[in-house]
């Protein structure tokens, strides 16, 4: 009565975990990239492009 280590349910769980891991990883990269873009396009006063410099 040995327990089978691999079952359909494990395969599905693995696909879900792997998928979620990759999605979270991609989300981190996306937020990082967005931060770099936003910060590098600010002027010396920290205003976004097109905005008037604050007094």
């Amino acid at each position, binding site marked *: *009565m*040995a*327990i*089978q280590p691999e*079952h*359909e*349910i494990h*395969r*599905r*769980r693995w*696909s*879900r975990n*792997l*998928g*979620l891991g990759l999605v979270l990883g991609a989300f981190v990269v*996306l937020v990082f*990239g*967005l931060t770099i*873009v936003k910060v590098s*396009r600010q002027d010396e006063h920290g205003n976004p492009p097109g905005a008037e410099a604050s007094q």
Partner: protein
Amino acid sequence: MSDLSAYDQTQEAGFGDYVQLLKPRVMSLVVFTAMVGLIVAPVPVHPFVAFTAILFIALGGGASGALNMWYDADIDRVMRRTSGRPIPAGRVSEGEALAFGLALSAISVLMLGLAANWFAGAFLAFTIFFYAVVYTIWLKRSTPQNIVIGGAAGAFPPMIGWAVATGGVSVESVLMFLLVFMWTPPHFWALALFMKDDYSNAGVPMLTVTHGRPATRKHIFVYTLILVPCALALALSSIGGPVTLAAAIVLNALFIRGAYRILRRDEAVAEADRYKAERGFFKLSLAYLFLHFGALLVEASLKPFGLGGW
């Protein structure tokens, strides 16, 4: 089989089931029209911001798809075409789909607001609300005009794309909305004519069931006639140009011809050739929308070379 036979009765969801909840085929239309709306707008957007914005518009569209599948699980169980979806198949629970849809809605709206602007974020929130609440919960089961008003939800993405770039609404973005909005009823009713889904058992008042098939054929023709001036007005607007106008003239002539053929046929003729004209019209409708937006894209990409546009 396995000694752990109890596991065989457990339908555990895989990653693909969650992707399926997002209605990826509908998402492709959202991505394409939102991208065109963003690119043809007169204000340039940083490519990374544009990519992020389109991604979260698509995710918001997917979230509304998940909310739709949550609410419509009872209908999906009855209809053969939809009985294999994750909820009716028992792989994802209804509560899970609701939580998934709500969480993705919040993430997509917040991220679009942060990446682009809060007007675009609010617009996306309104679109999700419109599709999930106004269409799915309110109209779908109460009026045979459900497709017409529900089509608005699918027509908002190019306006959101435009809002990402400009932070507002303008005549051009409203015309893009009108093109998709007026295109949806003939597109969907042609599908309803030959798909013959069991909407009556599911309690959904489809036009083919409530008003009959001859009335649906008339509706397709009339809506096609209303669609034509919308397409031509878009071609003559500031984001249109000679390419768009040429495409609009050819596509609309073909579309009117196809709708007229459908109008002239009755069920006996359609049954005899297995809905050939209706299937052809449906395929044409896909090309119609793709090529109209494609022409706008060509127009925008020609502008840097002094070509394209009026």
